């Protein structure tokens, strides 16, 4: 394919010129015939071929006639038999004749098509793929109108659940092996493979019933390992999309629609900071499915199962469409004018000065899921209308050190390390970041370079995702990552000195004091570049927008007088608040002590916060909730303002690269974005917030631009945490979110939930022995206990890892602790 402009200048690409169906085409050396044909608009039928997978040559549908110059005179010599165009690379002077210009090729293709249909069932009327099926399409264009097969087709019982989400209809399978090749080559999850031989050959997991093995008893270990279910892969949904027939279907979509009923809208996934390109397919205002959109720069052809399947949350039975106001203790539907007036009145009253002149302030919690425009509106409302810097988007562990880092090295820096650069990096060190569980398609991109790239994981143990990347472990007790970085093995340090080396900091770096300082030192001394990859889709955008207590838009420090003045001027207000703002945790703590007058809350899940959330909301006189769903926080609010879910709005997410990911409204409803609602709310104070439209907000952000160095925060400063004091019966807590877990945005999708990994507690053998743990363990703090089965893992001693929000293991809510905390561990029955 054509290289990008700058690449062409630096790399001289060797080309080859050949003729296809009489048309001359020039392509880079090493191009497959089938790709070269596409360049000149010639479509050769195919099934097993896929541009992102290594050639297989299995289906034989793409047969073409090839002649190549041979011998000393370069005379054209025809190959004696037709060749598979998906496995043969072009050579200079080659002459290719496809089905358009060669009878032999046409006959060969028709023959293969007829054979493919020999055992293919007549399922079209009941098959999901009908209407968008490459087999249907190519049978129509390259097949015979009638089949001459009058004998018996081979049959299989169907469908077979490969996992709770993926179903297999074996009769439909044409054995192109795209699914097994994707699983093995791209995702590294060889949970499905070809089984049996010949005409009985089929795709499958090891299922002793299906394969007719005699088991003495159900073999739990063979069928379901501790990593989850049979087809245990976070990327399994991609196989449904690339399956050229209806053999692989998703349980969530099966039988629900025909593709010609659907409207496809390109969009951006809202689930992680990669912000993958997706296609939303909807019908009559309802989203029926989501597919991966091709985006060579970000997610290529793939998305995670979460991106693909977790969209039910946007329209569950608790969806809010009308504003609610609390009257006589109960939330009652009202009109917008009434609700906005009530909200403003309530906030004003709650923050009014009392007879002594003391006043409680307001605080704004945006959550990390909001778009760039929404985040901008929230922080502008906080500063301009509510007169406070108490605004934070981080519904997770956070630190001032992290904020300083974000303000100095992330905000307003544009595009940083990119996916492409990550792929090409000779070495990648991951700190407080699990590529598969927390990075989604970042994992796939790293895996592309397996064998050509050194991956180092600074973590308590090598997770399965890290193993699949061939990573080596730099063991670190949670909270002590800074020390681990300072004491990196010499060979890793040396590797980091190579050009293109990258250090990835996850959002969990904020849980370990001194990590950013240490990372900066490491980067400075080795020349490696830093990339910050948070978990949620709105995190980077919130940083850019200044939705952090210490940051104004563009990376300006809220503590800088000059920054405050220039922003105030741009906003046309006299001044911006100068009092130091507080983080989410501090705000919640203050609120629980009755120290906050009014809380304005966006998309925040109470169960993600470690503070005493219930008391905080109880003791705060006035709470306004902007929500999609009638959540726990909405239920305790005084005014609830409904906002649009991603499918029903336009906006921009900023991904971890710093890349703007804009998306347009897929489904038109009268739901309003947060930034529009806040714009209306601000009018109650007579303030023209200027955040009514996406365009207006983007114009303001552009006008503000990035901060000058002088206006940015001071460089991060923090001391590395010392060793945690653990005594007998305690351990240091390690935890992170599994990709598929009980996160709020995954609610309402049981098929996806069924593919989540089984929640287990991990500890080393020594640790398990020390506490006498046998089959399961109880992990507890003063606040609560989590009991999980134990899996002895090769990891640092004195640490126990549990998943952050999996069934039976909600760390924030139950333990009210974060990674690095000391917890009590006791063996349970």
């Amino acid at each position, binding site marked *: 394919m054509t290289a990008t402009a700058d690449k062409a200048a630096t790399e001289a690409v060797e080309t080859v010129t050949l003729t296809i169906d009489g048309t001359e085409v020039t392509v880079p050396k090493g191009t497959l015939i089938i790709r070269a044909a596409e360049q000149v608009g010639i479509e050769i039928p195919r099934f097993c071929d896929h541009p992102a997978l290594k050639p297989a040559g*299995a289906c034989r549908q793409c047969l073409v006639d090839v002649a190549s110059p041979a011998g000393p005179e370069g005379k054209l010599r025809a190959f004696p038999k037709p060749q598979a165009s998906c496995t043969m690379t072009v050579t200079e002077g080659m002459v290719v004749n496809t089905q358009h210009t060669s009878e032999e090729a046409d006959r060969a293709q028709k023959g*293969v098509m007829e054979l493919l249909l020999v055992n293919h069932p007549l399922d079209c009327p009941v098959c999901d793929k009908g209407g968008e099926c490459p087999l249907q399409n190519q049978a129509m264009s390259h097949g015979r109108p009638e089949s001459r097969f009058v004998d018996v087709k081979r049959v299989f019982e169907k469908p077979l659940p490969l996992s709770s989400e993926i179903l297999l209809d074996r009769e439909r399978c*044409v054995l192109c092996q795209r699914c097994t090749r994707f699983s093995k080559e791209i995702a590294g999850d060889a949970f499905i493979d070809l089984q049996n031989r*010949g*005409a009985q050959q089929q795709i499958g997991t090891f299922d002793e019933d299906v394969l007719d093995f005699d088991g003495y008893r159900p073999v739990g270990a063979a069928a379901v390992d501790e990593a989850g279910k049979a087809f245990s892969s976070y990327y399994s949904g991609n196989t449904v999309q690339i399956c050229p027939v209806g053999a692989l279907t998703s349980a969530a979509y099966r039988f629900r629609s025909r593709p010609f009923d659907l409207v496809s809208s390109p969009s951006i996934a809202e689930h992680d900071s990669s912000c993958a390109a997706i296609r939303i397919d909807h019908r009559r205002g309802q989203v029926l499915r989501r597919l991966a959109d091709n985006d060579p720069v970000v997610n290529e052809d793939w998305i995670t199962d979460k991106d693909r399947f977790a969209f039910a949350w946007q329209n569950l039975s608790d969806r809010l469409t009308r504003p609610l106001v609390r009257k006589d203790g109960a939330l009652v539907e009202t009109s917008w004018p009434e609700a906005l007036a009530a909200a403003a009145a309530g906030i004003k009253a709650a923050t009014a000065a009392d007879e002594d002149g003391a006043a409680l302030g307001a605080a704004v919690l945006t959550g990390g899921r909001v778009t760039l425009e929404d985040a901008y509106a929230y922080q502008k409302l906080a500063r301009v209308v509510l007169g406070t810097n108490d605004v934070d988007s981080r519904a997770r562990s956070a630190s001032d050190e992290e904020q300083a880092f974000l303000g100095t090295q992330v905000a307003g820096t544009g595009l940083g390390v990119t996916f492409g650069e990550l792929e090409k990096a000779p070495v990648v060190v991951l700190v407080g970041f699990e590529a598969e569980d927390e990075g989604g398609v970042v994992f796939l991109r790293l895996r592309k370079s397996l064998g050509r790239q050194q991956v180092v994981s600074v973590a308590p143990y090598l997770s399965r995702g890290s193993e699949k990347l061939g990573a080596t472990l730099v063991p670190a007790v949670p909270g002590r990552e800074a020390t681990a970085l300072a004491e990196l093995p010499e060979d890793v340090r040396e590797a980091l000195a190579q050009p293109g080396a990258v250090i990835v900091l996850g959002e969990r770096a904020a849980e370990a004091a001194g990590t950013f300082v240490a990372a900066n030192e490491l980067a400075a001394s080795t020349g490696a570049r830093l990339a910050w990859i948070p978990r949620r889709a709105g995190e980077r955008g919130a940083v850019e927008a200044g939705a952090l207590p210490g940051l104004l838009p563009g990376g300006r420090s809220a503590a800088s007088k000059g920054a405050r003045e220039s922003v105030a001027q741009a906003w046309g207000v006299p001044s911006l608040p100068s009092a130091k703002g507080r983080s989410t945790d501090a705000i919640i703590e203050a609120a629980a002590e009755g120290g906050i007058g009014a809380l304005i809350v966006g998309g925040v899940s109470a169960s993600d916060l470690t503070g005493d959330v219930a008391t905080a909301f109880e003791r705060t006189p006035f709470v306004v909730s902007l929500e999609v769903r009638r959540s726990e926080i909405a239920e305790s609010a005084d005014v609830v303002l409904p906002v649009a879910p991603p499918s029903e709005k336009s906006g921009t997410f900023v991904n971890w690269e710093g890349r703007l990911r804009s998306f347009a409204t897929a489904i038109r409803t009268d739901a309003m974005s947060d930034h529009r609602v806040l714009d209306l709310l601000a009018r109650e104070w007579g303030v023209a917030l200027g955040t009514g439209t996406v365009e207006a907000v983007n114009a303001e952000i552009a006008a503000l631009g990035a901060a000058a160095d002088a206006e940015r925060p001071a460089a991060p400063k923090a001391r590395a945490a010392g060793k945690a004091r653990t005594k007998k019966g305690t351990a240091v807590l390690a935890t992170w979110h599994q990709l598929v877990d009980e996160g709020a945005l995954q609610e309402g999708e049981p098929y996806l939930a069924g593919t989540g990994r089984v929640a287990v507690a991990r500890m080393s053998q020594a640790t398990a022995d020390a506490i006498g743990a046998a089959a399961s363990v109880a992990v507890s703090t003063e606040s609560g206990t989590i009991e999980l089965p134990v899996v002895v893992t090769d990891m640092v001693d004195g640490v126990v890892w549990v998943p952050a929000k999996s069934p039976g293991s909600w760390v924030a809510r139950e333990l009210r602790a974060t990674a690095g905390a000391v917890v009590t561990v006791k063996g349970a029955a």
Partner: protein
Amino acid sequence: MTDLVPVLSATWGAEKSWSLDTYTEAGGYAPLKKALGMEPGDIIQAVKDSGLRGRGGAGFPTGMKWGFLPPDDGGPRYLVVNADESEPGTCKDIPTMMSAPHQLIEGVAITSFAIGCNHAFIYLRGEVVHVYRRLLQAVREAYEAGHLGKDIHGSGFDLDVTVHAGAGAYICGEETALLDSLEGRRGQPRLKPPFPAVAGLYARPTVVNNVESVASVPAIVDRGVEWFTAMGTERSKGMGLFSLSGHVTRPGQYEAPLGITLRELLEMAGGIREGHELKFWTPGGSSTPIFTQDHLDTPLDYESVGAAGSMLGTRALQIFDETTCVVRAVTRWTEFYKHESCGKCTPCREGTYWLTQILKRVEGGRGTEADIQQLLDTCDSIAGRSFCALGDGATSSIISSVKLFREEYEAHVEQGGCPFDHSAAALFDYSETPATEEAHA
């Protein structure tokens, strides 16, 4: 009249023929010592000059194959012996390894030395356990006698040999499928290029050779190129094991120069069984187009057989007399291909499935005239379209038998059944009772 030339089979009748002692007494391992004193390049040249062609069916010049190995890059290169003999009618490698395993071991040692291989593998089909015992023992004896292992006979050359048992798959006789199987995978053929010489076992340069090819190397080294080239024809040099089976009086292994004819071999073997006459036969196993009485004088060398419309293959001469129903024979071969099809490519997987059903109907008297044409049409969609030669092999007997015995197919259609008495073809007496049709695996 061509003489038989017992070379590989010379010691098969000796007392404890398989033992190292017997082999050594007959001059065994002297060629190895001679070879170790030669330049590896010279050994390769000698094999090239001898004109030895792969005895596993394809007939590719062995020396040329060795010559395709890239220059030494410091990494390992492998010799893999294809002992997966499973082509119907082929039964020469099994007796070779049963009766004279050291013949093969010595060949492995010399070949490995010539190509720079320090770890050779023998991939034996799993369904012949006593052969496996003999090979394991022979390898052990060879180690003990210093013919294998470290610094063999002070030459500085190290060689390890692993004897590996397969587990029942004809397709593993295809060299790239064999390599995948040896790597612990399903035996499905690989894309070529890259060819095994460049990227074979474990993606390293590899030579895959048939048992008989490798076992012929010691004799070439010992007796010289001229001796070898004195036998055979201009382009098919040397001797080979001709396996006669079926309706012949004395079936068995007949080692002869390439170019001998079936007429000559039949004479040595006591002719077709008493009271019967030759109807059809395969020159090189079930994957080769069938021959008839018309081809009794076709010299059995690669060129002549090719010119006559078939392939020399493995010299697996299955002899069928007039009591044999061609349709029955072809149907059973087709069922074999269907059973053994690996399933990777559409034409072979679906095609053999379809062909089998048509043939069974025709054989069972439920076929139509259109079915006969359909057989040919389906073969047309397979031959030259499949991923490997198994697909092509499956079509050979069908296409050639319809061409030569179409009237027999038509008779099944017209008469609504098989006009032949199966008991007449059997080598023992019984009275024909309606055979129950049992589903094949």
